[in-house]
């Protein structure tokens, strides 16, 4: 078990190292000629006005929030799903009740218009 996670840790480090090494090598091979016009922020050919900040729509937050709730729900359901073969029928029904309650929550969000993209 620990050796498995050691492999994952090593793999993660290698997976981060390989693109970083490639980018580094390309950084050496490529020319470097910065000038103020090239380095200015891109705005379809015109000058940028004001700081780089846009109005943050609350809708993004609501989507991420609903995703979080469903993510935690699925995390709680994973052990139930793994133990499925050993569970009696009423335990399966308990899991189904869990999902139904969350389906009700989703329906509420739908009816309240929280899932509309403005």
């Amino acid at each position, binding site marked *: 078990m620990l050796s498995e996670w050691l492999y994952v840790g090593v793999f993660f480090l290698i997976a981060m190292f390989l693109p970083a090494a490639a980018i580094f090598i390309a950084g050496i091979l490529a020319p470097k000629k910065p000038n103020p016009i090239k380095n200015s922020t891109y705005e379809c050919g015109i000058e940028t006005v004001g700081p780089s900040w846009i109005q943050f729509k609350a809708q993004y937050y609501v989507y991420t929030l609903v995703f979080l709730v469903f993510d935690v729900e699925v995390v*709680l359901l*994973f052990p139930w799903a793994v133990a499925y073969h050993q569970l009696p029928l009423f335990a399966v029904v308990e899991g189904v009740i869990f999902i139904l309650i969350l389906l009700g929550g989703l329906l509420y969000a739908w009816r309240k218009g929280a899932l509309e993209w403005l």
Partner: protein
Amino acid sequence: MTGLQIAFLAIAAVTLASAVLVVSSRKIMHAALWLVLALGGVAALFATLEASFFAAVQVMVYIGAIAILIIFSVMLTRRVMEDAGPQNTRYWPAALVVSLGVFGGIFFLLLQWPGFTIEARPVLEQGDFLVRFGQALVSPDEFVVPFEVASILLVAAMIGAIIIARDPSRK
């Protein structure tokens, strides 16, 4: 020093350092990013304890959802990239004394517990762990009531957050 101890020390050092940087970063966005590293460190600690499910879930829920939520909520403030100045308080010597005292007190109390220096026994051999966990979650004389209440709690959280985050000009 076994390899596991070295790994634990390294991961703990990274986690603690990033936790300190979360609190003391001048730019709030950097604080959010250091938080991501701290949460990743906790996931790695779970992995060293052979709690595979919790390590993976920590990354999936905390880094994959909560960190994004925190970054979004940070971006809701206008001054995301402003340098907020040094984050130290004037009374940091008193804070240091209090925290060292609390740490010493807890450490002393834990030393009285005989289980402090014994390595923890595994709950079950890992192959059956998830199955046993699943059974415990839905079995009537174990944890089924908290399981169902958890779903109600999640729905309540979702409803509450939607009500708060909704545009008040809409009906």
